[in-house]
């Protein structure tokens, strides 16, 4: 595979404009840490954006920063940590680029409470499939000026445009407490997590690790508030909840964010987003070899030694959708299949940005 690695936005524009003129397909990537998601790139040339790096603006008092899309997550997090701030959507992958994190729609355990990448991306600059540079959004949260293209950018896997610069919210890190409930079965723990999610305790982590019979509840915020809520949780829900020490608690949530450390190597892993009340049904119908529930049961990570039986149909019938994380053999539909009308609309939206279909063709859907 031929690799293009521009160093500046102008070079990105040049590379794509040239490709557009010649109808050369390009597989977009940051550092390539998410290349296992979706279909394998069909394009013969990779456009690597990791050369566009550096934080160009950071105003902690305004809770906002701008970085070139190829800046690593590690660099972003280190800069924010100096001011006790963070990316609230809890992405993971130190070597991943911030642009790639957004394009892959990566979010961690806090997603159900604090939102995903799409809720924290305020604006961006990009180059579309014709080599044209454009910007969208801004640097403020209250912004309804024009179409909300940042929402579209998140999770678009490089199929619409190449982001060159992104502006995101930086939110305060609070005190964090993780409580563990040990020895409960899934049928006891999942309803507990749902009940806590619907309470004013404002949890930012609600997970269940079935092979450890371990439910994990995270509370974050101002110190006095967190302590009061932890006490209230014990009083109202489960007296035996045990506070984990800081490092143990943080370690569990890091594993949940990455998912793979919780499972055996080289097995099939699927990520299922589901209405939390249907989690038990999904597990019963799909019979995974192992599983972990996150987002109060709204996210199931399912492990299969071999293929997952008719996972898309089953999950769709329960009101959810399934995305492949990894599989021992290629899978025909790593993304949730779309109905005809939505697929057609998706194609038209792609056409609006990439009419010659040169940007990461086939990455999400074979024909797009």
């Amino acid at each position, binding site marked *: 595979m031929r690799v293009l690695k521009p160093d500046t936005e102008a070079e990105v524009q040049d590379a794509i404009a040239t490709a557009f003129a010649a*109808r050369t397909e390009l597989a977009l990537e940051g550092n390539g840490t998410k290349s296992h998601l979706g279909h394998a790139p069909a394009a013969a040339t990779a456009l690597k954006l990791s050369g566009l790096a550096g934080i160009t603006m950071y*105003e*902690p*008092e*305004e*809770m*906002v920063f701008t970085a070139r899309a190829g800046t690593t997550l590690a660099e972003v997090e280190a800069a924010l940590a100096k001011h006790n701030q963070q990316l609230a959507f809890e992405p993971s992958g130190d070597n991943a680029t911030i642009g790639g994190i957004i394009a892959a*729609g990566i979010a961690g355990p806090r*997603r159900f409470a604090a*939102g995903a990448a*799409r*809720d924290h991306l305020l604006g961006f600059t990009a180059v579309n499939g014709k080599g*044209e540079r*454009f*910007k969208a959004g*801004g640097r*403020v949260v*209250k912004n*309804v*000026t*024009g*179409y*909300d*293209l940042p*929402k*579209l950018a998140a*999770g*678009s896997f490089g199929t619409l445009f190449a982001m060159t610069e992104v502006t995101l919210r930086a939110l*305060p890190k609070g005190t964090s407490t993780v409580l563990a409930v040990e020895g409960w079965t899934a049928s006891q723990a999942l309803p507990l997590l*749902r009940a806590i*999610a619907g*309470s*004013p305790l*404002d949890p930012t982590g609600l997970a269940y690790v079935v092979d450890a019979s371990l439910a994990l509840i995270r509370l974050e915020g101002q110190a*006095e508030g967190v*302590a*009061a*809520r932890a006490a209230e949780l014990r009083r109202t829900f489960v007296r035996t909840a045990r506070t984990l020490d800081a490092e143990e608690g943080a370690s569990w949530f890091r594993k949940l964010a990455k998912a793979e450390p919780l499972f055996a190597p080289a097995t099939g892993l699927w990520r299922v*987003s589901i*209405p*939390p009340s249907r989690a038990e049904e999904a597990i019963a119908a799909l019979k995974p070899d192992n599983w972990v529930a996150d987002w109060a049961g*709204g996210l199931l990570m399912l492990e299969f030694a071999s293929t997952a039986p008719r996972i898309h149909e089953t999950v769709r019938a329960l*009101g959810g*959708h399934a995305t492949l994380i990894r599989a021992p053999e290629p899978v025909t539909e790593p*993304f*949730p299949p779309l109905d005809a*009308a*939505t697929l*057609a*609309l*998706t*194609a*038209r*939206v792609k*056409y*609006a*940005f990439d*009419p010659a279909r040169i940007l990461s063709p086939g990455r999400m859907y074979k*024909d*797009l």
Partner: protein
Amino acid sequence: MQMPELDSRLLERRGEFIAALLALVPDGVIADDDALVAYDCDALTAYRQKPLAVVLPRTADEVSAVLAYCSANKLKLVPRGAGTSLSGGSLPVGDGILLGLSRMNRILEVDLENRCAVVEPGVTNLAITRAVEADGFYYAPDPSSQIACTIGGNVAENSGGIHCLKYGLTTNNLLGVEFALIDGTRVRFGGKALDPGGLDLLGLITGGEGLLGVVTEVTVRLRAKPPEAKALLIAFPSIESAGQCVADVIATGIIPAAMEIMDRFAMDALEAYCAPGYPKQAAAILIAELDGMAVEVAAAAAEVEKIARQNGALECRASASDAERDQIWAGRKAAFAAAGRIAPDMLCMDGTIPRRALASVLSRMTEMSKQFGLPVANVFHAGDGNLHPLIMYDVMKDGDLAHAEAFGADILKLCVEVGGVLTGEHGVGVEKRDLMPLMFTPDDLAQQEAVKCAFDPQALLNPGKVFPSLSACVEGGAMHVHHGRMPFPNLPRL
């Protein structure tokens, strides 16, 4: 502000259209001239135009049928919820119909276990909260028009409210919609599960201002009501000190549920209107709301008060009950009405700036007010930088409206100059349409207009709104056909 020229071919067919629409929506077509007057504008009352007819469907199937008919007959349409838009988002066009969604007002499902509700687009924002509050839940985005505005309209405008800093806008509280495309097809984006399965088309159409399709069903996220909420009313000797206090509070990591600043002019207007008892010597007041458990509210309130005093606060009152909290807010909620009493007419602007620019922007506005000879009061969502300058004028005075609009445009230009945006929550509509080039280059606008073409290539939905130029969506010419093969050959074209 010019609206697109009327298409006489459409006007000529008015009778035919009305007959056809009556067949599709039997008891839901208003065509009588006098009755149409009631629909000739929304809350941007300076601009009025009667539509050809008003169509009020009761079901999603009726919406689809009407859209399919419009599409086949190139008939324009303007969707409307409750018509509370301050930017002319549902201003009718004379050669199109007004599609009112207010009859679709049923709450279809309340699903507390999954913390969501499924409702029709004509349900009011407040009605959603009312339906779930007895169980300890609420729907967080709370625009000040919430008693009247519809959730479908909220989706189209990506509406906000005073609690955005902590709880987000509509787009951050939306799980799914059913969306009718211009040809009548309905698609579902999202649902009760988080994250899209594919591109975030839900996020794209939220804030689409009725230009991309029509919302026929909405799934909203519900939140548990915090056990306690306390309001602090803090008086400052200057706008600068109030603004600095806000910045300092945020720097500690506390994110209050709401933070509002009012200037002296707004306070004087309020004093004359409803005497809320705000401190008379203050140059600015800050109302901060803290919510959560009692212990953390108390701790946060103490911290905010300490920071306020460090910034020279003259006075700090904290509510000790829900009634006292409501009283503190009563003045802020009456601010627009109070300002509206001072002059015969008022333009309510809406721009967002970085918080740190507040003092300098307000000071520039004072200068501009003198230059334009028009008074302006300021109410400011301090937490998120969303400004609402209230410009007072008299429409009976020759040229006063144009003058007020020019003043408003200059304010928005200033917002963009300091790193902000043209509109924080009211939308672009017609009001700010011609100012879009202040924020976006021709390439930026062209990219957005291309998105419009993906949804509505004939430009039938909400013409004359948001984008300054009518761009044609040329299909065959622009599309590259390689070796005789169309791109995406199996996919249907609109």
